[in-house]
């Protein structure tokens, strides 16, 4: 066998070896074996001198070509081997992403707060500034100043929690509506225009059941200025409802009675559950009353020194508790006030 035959045979042997998908370490061994100092290729090159001068160039060229092929095979095999090794490593690092996540879990605001914030944001956009008021109120701010005299049937509309008359003279009570803030703000004698929003807890002395609470949340806005009209009230309410329920929301107005407004109105929204067709959520009416409103009664303005011939105003309010129950689909509002973290979790986590 000639040296050239031996070299070609070595190339065939190398190709067999790299086809067996050696590891990078085994490839190093193959490199030493087939291209190292003691390899057939190196041996063949050493024997060039033994050949006639005219055969040497062709011989050397052929051996070098075979050596280059070997080098290329080894490099290709090395790349393939590295890729196989990488793939094996990554496969070994498999993570079971079917397992639930473990990141920190965010809490959530109460649905009533969520609704209240949305409402206040809409009112802010219309220029109403939030003002807070006390929950322990006097009879004047809760009733008298709001045109609800003693023994007026309107007081029946709001069963009241009266407080500790033994300790203090005069009637103190838990505010039965956030309209008390209107009385307090007007009592400050602010200059016009007055544009205020108020929100918070109110109390009614009622037997509590799944849908009636002794404490719940209300929100209201009022605007007192020169020249305000009933049509302005309607326009502002329309903006409020579109801001809360969307530009295409359907609503209607109807007469209502509130002692502190005249004329008074109620605002109905087409039931968001049945879109007006009638369902249990709207008691078959297709409409849900969401807002009570009206032009501030002249007696209220007069009580606080505003001349009703010069100044007018309007007020509007709604129950954020009820709105929240509609939002999250919890018909029994009491559940929202039971500090039930399971319910709050499920509301927060529901898709």
């Amino acid at each position, binding site marked *: 066998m000639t040296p050239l035959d031996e070299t070609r045979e070595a190339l065939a042997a190398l190709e067999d070896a790299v086809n067996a998908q050696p590891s990078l370490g085994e490839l190093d061994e193959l490199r030493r074996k087939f291209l190292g100092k003691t390899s057939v290729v190196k041996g063949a090159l050493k024997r060039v001198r033994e050949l006639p001068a005219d055969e040497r160039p062709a011989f050397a060229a052929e051996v070098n070509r075979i050596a280059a092929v070997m080098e290329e095979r080894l490099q290709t095999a090395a790349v393939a081997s590295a890729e196989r090794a990488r793939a094996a490593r990554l496969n070994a690092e498999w993570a079971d992403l079917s397992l639930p996540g*473990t990141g*920190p*879990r*965010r*809490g*959530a*605001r*109460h649905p009533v*707060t969520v609704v209240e914030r949305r409402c*206040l944001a809409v009112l*802010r*956009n219309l*220029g*109403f*500034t*939030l003002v807070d008021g006390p*929950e*322990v109120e006097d009879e004047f701010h809760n009733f008298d100043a709001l045109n609800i005299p003693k*023994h007026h*049937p309107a007081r029946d509309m709001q069963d009241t*929690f009266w*407080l*500790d008359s033994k300790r203090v003279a005069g009637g*103190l009570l838990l505010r039965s509506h956030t309209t008390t803030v209107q009385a307090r703000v007007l009592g400050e004698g602010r200059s016009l225009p007055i*544009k205020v929003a108020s929100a918070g*807890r109110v109390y009614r*002395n009622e*037997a*509590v059941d799944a849908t009636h609470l*002794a404490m719940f*949340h209300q929100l209201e806005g009022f*605007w007192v*200025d020169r020249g*305000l*009209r009933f*049509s*302005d009230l*309607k*326009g*502002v309410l*329309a903006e409020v409802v579109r801001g809360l329920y969307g530009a295409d929301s359907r609503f209607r107005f*109807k*007469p209502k*009675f509130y002692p502190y407004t*005249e*004329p008074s*109105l109620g605002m109905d929204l087409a039931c968001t559950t049945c879109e007006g067709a009638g369902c249990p959520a709207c*008691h*078959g*009416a297709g409409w849900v009353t969401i807002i009570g409103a009206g*032009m501030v*009664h002249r007696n209220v303005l007069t009580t606080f020194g505003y001349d009703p011939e010069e100044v007018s105003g309007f007020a509007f309010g709604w129950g954020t508790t009820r709105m929240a129950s509609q939002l999250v689909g919890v018909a029994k509002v009491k559940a929202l*006030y*039971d*500090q*039930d*973290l*399971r319910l*709050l*979790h499920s509301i927060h986590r529901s898709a």
Partner: protein
Amino acid sequence: MKIASEHLLRWWTSPGPITRTALAQLLDDVGIEVKRSEEGGTLLSLELLANRGDHRCYLGIARELHGRMGGTLVLPTCDPVVVGAAPVPLSVLSPLCLRYCLTALTLPETPGALDEADLLPVLAAGLSSVSAAVDATNITNLEFGQPTHLFDADTVVGGVTVRESRAGETCRPLFSTRDVSLPVGTLVIADDVKVLAVAGVIGCEESKVTNGTRRALLESATFDPVAVRKASRALGIHTDASARFERGADPSLVEVGAGRVLYLLRSRVGAEVVGETALEGSWVNPQRTLVLDPERVSHTLGRRFPVQEILSRLCRLGFDCWQRGSEVEIEVPPGRTWDIHHVEDLYEELARSVGYNDLPATLPSDTLGVSPTPGQESRERVEEVLLGAGFYEVITNGFYSRELIDPLPVPQGHALRSHVSTENALDRAFSLLKNNTLVQALDTVAQALRYGQQEVRAYEYSRVFLPDPTAPNGLCRERQVLWAVSAGPARAPSWQDKSGAADVWLMRGLVEELAAELRQVFSFRPGPVPEMLVSDLLHPARRAAILHEGQVVGILGEIEPDLVAAYGVKRQRPIYLEINVEVLLISTRSQSATLPPARPPSVRSLAFTLPHRVEAEGVAQSLRTAAAPAGKPRLSRVEVADLFVHEAPDGGLASRTVTYTLNFPQEPTSFSEEQINAAVFELVGVVERRWGAAGVHLRGAI
């Protein structure tokens, strides 16, 4: 109120055909809300406006529809009432009786019955047919809104007097088996020996008509609304008549009411009037007039209202009105004097007669938006921290029961036992206004655990009511607080690892995050916090005051273990936090930042062993405040890096080794390793001199 739509359409003839659905919509539109429609719209349950007593009858509803739509108002037949001599001696002694008419009549031996058509409003209202006499009075009330009453004349002794009740007077109301005491001053109808009726509320058993009654006295009257309301509330008796009178009845209708009862009983069962009808009372038609300026009406309602249209609409609603110059003068009918006082009341009449939805809506020009108040902004930021830490907002009641606070481990006389009480709560759970929020926080934990919720994180912006006679309202101060409670694992349990329990340091970390968010500095003072009401409800060795600029603004700590057990909480150690909301409202400091040093500081660690109850912060403070001579390395930061609790010796208390990380800036002056080491050595000396006597000693240095 429940009405039969068929009967209503007898009173009001629509100008065109009207379906039952359209009728219901029309009623809604004029403010008579249809809450329920039954039997294909033949029966309508109505919710009436609280101020509109006149709506509580077919006539009032029909007039409202007439005002809106026109058509024809058809009044049912009434017999004429001839006013003259009283059938029995009649005295009206109280001005609270506005008008009182009394008619004597005989009833036939065979009682007879009214026509089925007559009874329709009674049956639609859910009432039973009793007898022709009683049914006739019920029909009249439902149709005209004029309550009437029949007395058995043979039970009346002497004359009839309308007066206020005297001390000790009693009566037995209809359907009652016991006498009831009448508050002094209650308006009553009485004969010479007994009370025949509580005026405007209910008749009495002794004088009621029965099938055996042959001689009757028919009362048709109007009473002062407040007097009726007081009597009704005092006796706890609410009737259709009292509901009508409380809202103000129409004094001009008493003869009409009597005439309608007389017509029904005469024409249907053959009753006969005896003599003339007596009419007494203090009422004088006030003939209240109001003047409407059409320009002003048009401006207010946003649509032009010509004079003729105003006249037409108000006339249809029963007002007498006429044009005077450019204005319209209106006389308020007697039945509306209770609710029509001002021109705005007439604006509402006009608006309703047009339809609120048919009036324009405008938007005033001044509707520029405003920014959130500082309080709103602050709360948003505080809540972001709480939410990020996994807390859920809950809402608790403003009050609680005595039973809920009974287990508190504080003696009588402790401020926690002092409450503002509700006087008339229907439910004992609402008997006390809360003076603290810890009890409800603990209740939240207990409830969560009962429901199997192991990880509890809850917070609330709430109010407490602290009795204080010096407060502006003479009763209490309201304090707004932010409270939070945590119990269970510090992190949400997962398949990956099991977290330790939430503890006081987790809550302190929350406060530190709040401080960072608000760019404020809060510090902590371990130990009792007499400034905070709930201090005694926290673990005496695991509580701390939260301070801001030297003032106590809050408290945190573990809830006292026995108290926790008393509320049924087992195997959990809830941590409570309370902060005065006022401190969270302070305007946040302006933001400023310094660039981090280009060269990192040199860092060293020192470990000191501290005996039980020597606070780690005390040693850290000594390190921080140690003076460094000029030109020597100065500490920029000291932090606790590690803590190891040693095993407690027999009968003793465990000591702890606390490792502190010390940072020495290398800017603007850089120091060699040897200089830093020398400075550390100096600091060891500082600590040993200050704390050596307390048992603190160096454990190691790196």
